[in-house]
């Protein structure tokens, strides 16, 4: 079996979720690496969109910013923030890839503050950026996040970005576009989806070397268990080669 680190397996697993011909809104870092890997393997026609306006670039290397020139290198269009987000809002964008400091059992994400007092937070994070927008509009939200009890919490300090909100039909009632929402949570230990009715996070596969119990141990809330939990397919030699040599040769993402 090939040797890989925790970031590499998350990116490889994430890339497999993106089918050929789909559209995906991504940020910099690991999400962008996953989209680039998908393009170089099974999804050559994956259309990548960046919130600052880049549409379908032929990314020559990892962008540093979601608005740097690489995000519209040999692209079909160099557009605007409103155009990209309105394209998402109209229902044209299938996937988005996000991360965050905290996540709860309904897939709500916090990237705003740690602490109870918003006016004087213990820790200030960047805020939504385009995350709330992408998560509100794109059909399926994927999250890549390291599995531990600091990140997987019963209650996030601040809901920056909507998951299934309070579960059940609460998201639909909020006025957010219907049927869009969290789809897969990809961690270094396994992959989760959301149970259809309750919208609670559910383990569907465990990464090589991990069990459901270990994932539960590294999660601050009770996880559901899919009826047939499978073992995640580890990264192949070819996926790792492309990821290391073509997608991220300078180890912006993989080195961490």
């Amino acid at each position, binding site marked *: 079996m090939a040797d890989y680190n925790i970031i590499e397996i998350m990116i490889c697993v994430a890339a497999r979720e993106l089918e050929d011909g789909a559209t995906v809104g991504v940020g910099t870092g690991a999400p962008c690496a996953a989209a680039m890997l998908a393009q170089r393997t099974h999804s050559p026609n994956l259309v990548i969109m960046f919130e600052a306006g880049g549409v379908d670039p032929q990314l020559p290397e990892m962008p540093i910013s979601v608005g740097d020139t690489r995000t519209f290198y040999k692209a079909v269009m160099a557009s605007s923030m409103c155009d990209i987000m309105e394209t998402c809002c109209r229902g044209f964008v299938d996937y988005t890839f996000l991360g965050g400091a905290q996540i709860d059992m309904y897939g709500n994400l916090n990237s705003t503050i740690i602490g109870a007092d918003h*006016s004087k937070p*213990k820790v200030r994070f960047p805020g939504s*950026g385009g995350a709330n*927008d992408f998560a509100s509009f794109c059909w399926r939200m994927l999250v890549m996040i390291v599995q531990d009890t600091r990140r997987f919490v019963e209650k996030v300090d601040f809901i920056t970005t909507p998951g299934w909100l309070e579960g059940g039909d609460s998201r639909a009632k909020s006025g957010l576009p219907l049927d869009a929402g969290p789809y897969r949570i990809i961690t270094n230990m396994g992959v989760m989806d959301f149970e259809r009715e309750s919208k609670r996070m559910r383990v569907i596969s465990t990464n090589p070397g991990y069990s459901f119990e270990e994932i539960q141990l590294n999660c601050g809330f009770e996880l559901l268990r899919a009826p047939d939990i499978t073992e995640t397919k580890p990264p192949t030699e070819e996926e790792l080669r492309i990821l290391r040599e073509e997608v991220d040769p300078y180890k912006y993402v993989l080195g961490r």
Partner: protein
Amino acid sequence: MVVIEEGRGRLFTDPDPDRAREFFRKKSRKMTNKLMSLKKATEEFVHDGDYLAIGGFGANRTPIAACHEIVRQGRKNMGFAGHTSTHDFQILAASEAFNRVDIAYVVGLEARGLSQCARKYMQSGKVEVCEWTNYGLSARLKAAAMGVPYIPTRNMLGTDTFKYSGGKIAECPFTGKRLMLQPALYPDISVIHVHEADIYGNARIRGIMISDDDLARASKRVIITTERLIPNKEIRRDPTSTVIPFYLVDAVCEVLYGAYPGTMPYEYFSDEEHIQEWLRVQDDPVEFQEFLNRNIYDCPDHYEYIQRNGGIHRITELRQKELLLHKEVESGRL
């Protein structure tokens, strides 16, 4: 229209389109020569207490020269639109130029890491904040550009981002759906860096627009910094390329490399080593102050700043990097 819920954040700007019209009614439509130094433009059009918006996105086509000038002139108590504001935000935070911020994305520098000085300032309790999202702020500028008090969107619903915003949720009179209402944002002053402009303010931008077309239209006063001044004859030869017309603009400043150390599409790439230095020196307050003195306070202008950080040699490397020529240079092939 029935309002269902209100965000608890304060609106830092007035969304009333008739008051904006009153202002715009008095603004000169004359095509006069607006070329001046950045120093003079900042003295004349950027005031203490103003609500400021910066064009570009992150460290991309951002008017960094203008941010330095605002800091050098010691502006205080400003409002600020934090619309994926990264390197510009840490510059303005370092001098505590603002005391209220509409936040979509601040403190971070995307993949590069976080600014400790900006974070510390935002955690100090000295800054009043209101939460939004990138599209939220773009939509607010769009509403202002349309001359209407708000536009409806479908983001922010159901989240704390909404609860701590200055927006409202209302029922759609056509469909009964719940909608987020984004109040128009009319900045007092915006600074936008462009590729080319004439002396009157007609401006061209290459690559992504981000929100700068709407930003120029929404702002009461606009300073354009441009990589290159071009003749009005050239503007008129190719009007398709004009994205900002002269009547929106108050000042035109020719500032070559005005986005340095950020990226200017098709011109030069960001100076990542220098931006990393910015992040590193913030760990030590004394070192940081010396760094600010060397790079901002003791520099008469942007050219001296660039000179102190590698000058034309560095710019040449960044130009190669922007055009991906460094790959050819390194490998001897495409």
